[in-house]
């Protein structure tokens, strides 16, 4: 967590990305409507929002499951939409960027053995020379994610949800990627298993210097795992800053509203918690809004004339913070 992010290498740059579906038809959907952000090498970038906010679409656009309607996505400085399908460059891009999916039941082929699921990427990318090498690499990966070597020849139905998610992680790691998109990787798991998987993801990140895009709707877990967080709503980014800033000192009313809905395991807090609904009509004044930097590193979706108001809000919140800290 370098304090000066400007000096760090950008691994992903999203510039004015738009992703529309059914363009020109009556049921046109603007899933992503002009978003821009960077992901720095080695960090965990959290993306949160309600269902339908466009967070999963963003992940899928970055890994190029869709062709963007407008804007560009750079990976290592290279525009990914210019990579040709079935080219050597595409193969390399797919190796460097991997994905972990939400549903550990639907994302593993039930008719494949665990070792073949994990080694599929190794085969495609010709990363192993023979069967012994292939088995050795699979064993190494199973060790890494905390599964038993004997599990190699079993089928997915013999595993629990948490174990399956570990298999999905091993599969993603097999090709030694640099960047992993995790789309709600823990929301289908039990509380006690969630912690195991999150710890595993963190340990592997440290070991292999991986960069994560962590997509989720559970704000408290995102706050825990992320270095920076972006809040998404209706296809737009509403706020982007460090995890601590977004979670503890939110500036945009939508972020506050989302936070106020999160239940915490504390009855006393819950008795006092008041949900603050977000009134989207405050955006209906035909002012031009976009993500603007309020203070270095803290961005808010605002019109030009609102920047001053957000700056004052920031100063006020942080004044209070220093007072309460000195007390």
């Amino acid at each position, binding site marked *: 967590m370098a304090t000066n992010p400007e000096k760090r290498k950008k691994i992903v740059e999203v510039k004015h990305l738009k992703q529309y579906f059914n363009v020109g038809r009556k049921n046109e959907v603007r899933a992503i409507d002009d978003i821009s952000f960077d992901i720095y090498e080695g960090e965990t970038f959290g993306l949160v929002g309600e269902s339908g906010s466009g967070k999963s679409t963003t992940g899928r656009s970055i890994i190029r499951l869709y062709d963007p309607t407008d804007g560009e996505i750079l990976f290592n400085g290279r525009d990914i939409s210019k990579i040709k399908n079935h080219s050597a460059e595409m193969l390399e891009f797919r190796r460097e960027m991997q994905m972990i999916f939400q549903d550990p039941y639907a994302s593993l082929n039930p008719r494949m053995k665990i070792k073949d699921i994990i080694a599929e990427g190794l085969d495609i990318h010709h990363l192993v020379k023979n069967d012994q090498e292939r088995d050795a690499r699979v064993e190494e990966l199973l060790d890494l994610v905390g599964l038993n070597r004997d599990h190699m020849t079993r089928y997915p139905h013999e595993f629990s949800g948490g174990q399956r998610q570990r298999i999905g992680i091993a599969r993603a790691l097999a090709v030694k990627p640099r960047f992993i998109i995790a789309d709600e990787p823990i929301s289908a798991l039990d509380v006690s298993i969630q912690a195991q998987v999150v*710890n595993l993801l963190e340990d592997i990140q440290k070991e292999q210097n991986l960069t994560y895009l962590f997509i989720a709707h559970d704000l408290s877990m995102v706050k825990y795992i992320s270095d920076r967080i972006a809040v998404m709503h209706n296809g737009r980014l509403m706020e982007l800053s460090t995890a601590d800033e977004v979670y503890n000192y939110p500036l945009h009313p939508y972020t506050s509203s989302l936070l106020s809905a999160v239940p915490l*395991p504390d009855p006393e807090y819950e008795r006092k918690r008041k949900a603050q609904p977000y009134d989207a009509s405050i955006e209906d004044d035909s002012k031009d809004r976009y993500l603007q930097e309020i203070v270095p590193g803290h961005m808010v979706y605002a019109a030009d004339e609102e920047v001053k108001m957000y700056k004052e809000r920031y100063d006020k919140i942080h004044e209070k913070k220093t007072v309460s800290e000195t007390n």
Partner: protein
Amino acid sequence: MEKVLDVKDLEINFHTFAGDVKAIRDVSFHLNKGETLAIVGESGSGKSVTVRSIMGLLAKNSVIPKGSINFKGKDLIKASKKEMEEIRGNDISMIFQDPMTSLDPTMPIGKQVAEPLLIHNQMSRSKAMERAQEVLELVGIPNAKNRMKDYPHQFSGGQRQRIVIAIAIVNYPEILIADEPTTALDVTIQAQIIDLMKELQSKIETSIIFITHDLGVVAGIADRVAVMYAGKIIEYGTVDEIFYDPRHPYTWGLLNSMPTMDSKKLYAIPGTPPNLLEPPVGDAFAPRNEYALAIDFEAMPPFFKVTDTHYAATWLMHPDAPHIDPPAEIIRRRKQYEKYLKNQPVEGGAQLGN
């Protein structure tokens, strides 16, 4: 306090090709009138099986070798199919997890809400529809009058769950069972549904059994909490007792694995739950429990009393057990509770003032 439901010594097995799965192993609990009891535990701990047995909705390969479920002086386990049909959707109703699959996609929602009235109350069709509309308004479906003839796919996930709730409460049931009703929903919609359930509870004076694995939701909705592990209740108490002064190491583990404001490394309960084909003889949590004593592997701990409302089944509570320090997070919670209790006005005094 009046008990509306009393479950005693319940055991449920499932016949499978591999043998009998002992899904519920000697479970007893009761539900007080007007309260919300939350049952928490991980998948496979038996919470859904427990409530399905109350509704008489167990799979065909199940057997109940022991136990009773007393409701209004009747044992629901011994009740005939016909008797259960009269109780279901009338005295006891259930809300399921997935609002996408618990509604009939081919039937207009007005008719679906009116159905329990037509079946149980022999109400006239027009009257039932009128009442269905009232209830849809009550659960917050906007413009209910004009939406009676709409089909489930025309509603959002949150609205569908409101419709499911409307069906469940249309007959003012005495007991409402909610099995993970918010798990498939977003946080913001979840908050709305929970507020709705609280509001309805005070309006129609029903008692709620709420099943979830989300401890945040439990803290907000429950009056009392029962924690299940491997087919048994291992601890129960008021919501404050369970969250601020838990005694069973499994409850500690659950609370400890939630991220807090300043947690550096998440605590993860090691290992996986036991196989219930051959449940362990002692405390089922012992192999995953860093505080386990030798006796935990040999004998099942009985319930030890903490307060009149709070019991925990762990040998650590035995007078001869060695003293151990719980995890730092649990000590923090105890301290927070002590502080909270000190700042509360004396309960009796507050009542006298009224």
